[in-house]
Every structure is written in structure tokens, then in C-alpha cells.
């Protein structure tokens, strides 16, 4: 596999719900070991875009390619089986279950035979703690601990560590830092960097330009369902990106219009 082939690519994808056109002519690619930041205002179509990538929606037109080969996902499971893991805000964790049980929900390690296969708690706890620690969450040392007692950032990190452990190649994060404080957000960003270092392709959705700048290699700005800008790190300044996200109006115009 050539390293130039994008892991996941969208070519001229349109998506409409009945008469409502939400995405127009989207072309995007993301490579191994690269973070693609998807920026855009509320209602721009970011969630629709990643739902299309993760098999929740099917494109109305256009094609999707994985490792250069056309693919189509009829169900989220199809995308997952190809190694596309989507983590929603707080999604993928169950507050009243232990760290170990959370980590392996749906893929429990067992010991024993046939109907007497039992959930291997020790193994689950050991691996779960090891994996989240590898992502720098050193505060989790007890696999029996309930996830509800962890911070938002830690829960997000647990979900990401889980996706990576189960062989994800593409990690899609829908606003993982949206409701987090500065420290917690930094936590999640560190984990995004760690996933990238391990060679995953990451699609990172955010509102916050700062968060995007901290981890992004490649940026795409979505405005009313179309790609308004597509550029690499260093091509644009923070102000320019903020302006783009504000819908093309410059920050100065905005400030003028509200009479600052």
C-alpha cells in the first residue's frame, strides 16, 4: 500500500434528505498519521458529513474510497468492520459500569468453554487500564472503578483508547472537546496527537479554532454544506480561519455590526 493513497476519501459527495440538500459536492481525503480538522458553524453539515463517513447515512451522489478502492456502507457496522470508529461526545461509555466492562462492552474477553464461558474480569481490567495508561491517563489505575466517576475528558479518552485498541484505522471525533474545560480539552487533544503518532487517520470536528490549530495537519471549512476552504497547516493564520468559520464574514465586520 502506497503511503500516498489516502486511507479514506470522499469524491464529489452530495447528500440530501428528500428535498433538503445538506451536503454539496464534498471532496475530502485523510491520510495515515494525519489529523483532518473539520470546521464549520452550527448547521453547516459537519455531523451529516461524518454520519455519511461512518455509515449512518448513504451519500445521494458521489463515491467514497478506502485505500483507493470504492466502498459503500449500508450500516454503521459496515464502516466499523472496515476500521472506521466514530466517537461522539460522551458516547461509547456507560457511567455505571466499571472501566474494564466499559472497555470491552460488546467484545468481552471470556474464559472457559461453551455455555460456561465467563467474562474474564481480570483480563478485561488489566488490558483496559494498560491501554488508557498508554494514552497518558495515569489517573486510572483500578479497572473496577465506575466510569461515571471519571472526568469528561477521561471518559472521552477511554472511548478513543477503546477504538484504537479494537483496530480502528480511521478515528472520527465529533466535537470531543465541546463541553470540556481547558485542562480536560488539553487531555483529549494530547490523545488525538497520540493516535496520530500511532498512524491513525483522524477526522476531528470542532468549533474551537484553538483546538484545531493544536492538532490539525489539514483543515477543511464547511459552510452551508459545501467546502469553503481546504488548506494545510501553516497556510492560513488563526484570524483567517476564525473568519472563515464565521461564514466568510471577517471578524472585523462582525465586530462592526454588533457595535463593539
Amino acid at each position, binding site marked *: 500500500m502506497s503511503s500516498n493513497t489516502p486511507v479514506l476519501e470522499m469524491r464529489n459527495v452530495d447528500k440530501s434528505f428528500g428535498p433538503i440538500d445538506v451536503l454539496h459536492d464534498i471532496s475530502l481525503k485523510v491520510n495515515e498519521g494525519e489529523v483532518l480538522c473539520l470546521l464549520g458553524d452550527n448547521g453547516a453539515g459537519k455531523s451529516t458529513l461524518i454520519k455519511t463517513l461512518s455509515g449512518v447515512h448513504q451519500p445521494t451522489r458521489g463515491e467514497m474510497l478506502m485505500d483507493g478502492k470504492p466502498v459503500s456502507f449500508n450500516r454503521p457496522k459496515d464502516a466499523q468492520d472496515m476500521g472506521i470508529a466514530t466517537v461522539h461526545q460522551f458516547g461509547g461509555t456507560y457511567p*455505571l459500569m466499571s472501566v474494564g466492562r466499559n472497555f470491552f462492552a*460488546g467484545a468481552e474477553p*471470556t474464559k472457559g468453554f461453551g455455555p460456561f464461558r465467563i467474562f474474564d474480569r481480570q483480563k478485561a481490567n488489566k488490558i483496559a487500564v494498560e491501554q488508557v495508561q498508554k494514552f497518558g491517563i495515569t489517573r486510572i489505575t483500578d479497572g473496577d472503578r465506575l466510569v461515571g466517576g*471519571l472526568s469528561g475528558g477521561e471518559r472521552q479518552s477511554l472511548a478513543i483508547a477503546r477504538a484504537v485498541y479494537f483496530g480502528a484505522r480511521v478515528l472520527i471525533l465529533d466535537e470531543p472537546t465541546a463541553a470540556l474545560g481547558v485542562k480536560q480539552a488539553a487531555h483529549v487533544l494530547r490523545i488525538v496527537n497520540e493516535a496520530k503518532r500511532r498512524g491513525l487517520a483522524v477526522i476531528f470536528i470542532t468549533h474551537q479554532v484553538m483546538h484545531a490549530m493544536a492538532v490539525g495537519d489539514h483543515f477543511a471549512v464547511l459552510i452551508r454544506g459545501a467546502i469553503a476552504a481546504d488548506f494545510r497547516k501553516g497556510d492560513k493564520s488563526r484570524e483567517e480561519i476564525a473568519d472563515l468559520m464565521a461564514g466568510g464574514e471577517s471578524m472585523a465586520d462582525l465586530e462592526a455590526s454588533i457595535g463593539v
Partner: protein
Amino acid sequence: MADPDTTETTSKDGFSLLSLFRRPEAGAAAGFILIFVFFSYFGWEKNFLTPLGSSTWLNFASKVGIIAIPVGFLMIAGELDISVGAMIPAGGIVLAMSVGLYEMNIWVGVIISLAICAGFGFINGMLVTRTNVPSLIVTLATLFVIAGLNAYVSKQLAGTTQHSLADVGVVSEFIMGDYHSLILGDGDSKFTIFRSLQSSFFIWLIFAIVCGYILHVSPWGNWIFAMGGDQESARNAGIPTNRLKIALFMLSAMAAGLVGMTEAVLANTASTTTQFGMIFNSIICVVVGGVLLTGGFGTVTGTVFGTLTFGIVFQGINFTTFDKDLNMLFIGVLLLVAVLMNDSFRNWATSASTSKKK
């Protein structure tokens, strides 16, 4: 970065609380012990603590208990099943008619009865998973549908709503509905282990062990918890949430049918009367046992303790000098205390421990 000394304190002072709170069955067990001691004291004169006295509430508890465990599973999974009130008589009358009217072997009757209940459970499960109607409403509707069918079909086939079921063989009586005693030695040295416990008590015991295994030891238990914790995530993690939910509705329906059958075999009669009381009773046992109404958490041991507590309060009042009418009041208070305890447990467990840092 978490600095080492705050990490220390969190894990240290969290520990004493943790070991206590992490197991809400400990709360249910403590409640049971409290109630047990209370009634042992006030019921001493009237033989509450004797083997025969204990059997009174254990027999009562066993019937609610068999239903409470799968109802607890459903509650953990985020659902309710109140159609059990009509499933109990359905189980009994199908068995009675199979044996009495159609002269089938009792075990064939048991299988037919279980199959019919499973069918109703399947319908409950399908309706809940295919529509987005809350299970409370779905099973409320099927409660009445089944109750209506019980009476109508009974009258059409047998011309009565009261079926008799003659004794049908020693083995089946022994397993399904009889009184059991275990007395060691005889004469002056005789010692009673238990006396006049009904078959349903032993069925409950075995059922609790099997269900405890399913929920806490087998990997399926994890699926039930995950489904109740966050259904969307559970589905995304590849857990077959719909099939699992349907299976749970089938389990609760069959358990209720089984209780109806044990009652029919024991009493040699089966009636179509809907057991509305058992709907509330089973839910009370589950909640007193520490299962969260909001789903995602609970234990079989807790449910068993909750059922025992409920059984004592419901029946134990007869052994005391208190007015019998007070048992409802006792149960109401018990339920309130349990709900408040469960709620504070949830708040404690889901509040981020990092808040201590600041």
C-alpha cells in the same frame, strides 16, 4: 497532568466509601437484616422465627422473586414489564386446560404453557423494539389484551374461568407444587432445617443462581448493562440490542407463567383472575433490591434481598401485634427509602471524582 498527591488522596479517601457504596446489594442486604431483626423481635411471641413461621413469608417471597429477577433485568436494560400480571394466570390456565381438558402429560402442558408465554413476551419485545412506544405503555396494553384472552379463551374452550387441575403424579407435584420439609434425626434430638417450603421456593433459588450467573459472570450480563447505560453506544459496539431486549421480555413472560403453573399445581386449581398486585410487588422488590429505575445498574443478589425484605414486611406483620393494615404503610416507606438510597448512589457514582481536586 494530575499531580501525584491529589491522586493519592482521591484513591485513599474514596476507598472506604467505595467498598461500601460500590455494592448496592450491600444496601439491600443491610435493609433486609434490619427488617429481619425488627420482625424477629416483634414477632417472637407468634413464632415468626420458627421454620414454619419463616416458610410463610419465604413461600410468599418466592413467587414474587421468580418474577422480580427478570423484571429487574428489564429495568437494568431500561424497560418495564407490567404484563406479568396477566401472564401469571395465563401460565396456570394453559397448564390446567392442557392437562384437564386435553388430557396431556403435565410436562407437555408445561412446555406448551411456557411456549405461549414466550410468544407473548416475544410480541412485547417486538412492539417495544420496532415502535418507539415506551415499554410501560406497550405492556400495559398487552396486560389487558392477555387478561381478556385468558377469560375469553377459557370460557370458549372450557366453559369456565375456574379450572381444576387434579394431582398428576408424584414427581411433577414434587417439582412444581408441593410442600417440602427437611427434618434431621427424630424424637428429642430432631432438628428442623426447613418445614413446609413450597416447590416455588426451590425454583426461585435455582433461578436466582442461574440468573446471577447470566448477569454477573457471563458476557451477556455486560450487554444488558451496556444496553441500559447507553443504548445507542451499545448498538454501535455491536451488541444486538433488539434481540437481547426481546429475549428479556420472553424471559419475564416465561417466569410469570411458571409462577402461575406452580400455583396451579399446588392449589389444584387455576383461575383467570389477573394478578394486578404482583405487578407492583415485583417492581417494589426490584427497586428495594437496588436496581436503578433509570437503568444501567443492578444486581441479582440485591433483588433477592429486596424480595426477602418485601416478603417479611408483607407477611411478617401477621406475626406482630401491629395492625395488619400497616403493612402497606411499611412498604410505602420502604420503597421511598430505597428509591432515595438508589438515587444518591447514582449521583455519587456519576459525579466526577475530579471535582475534589478544585
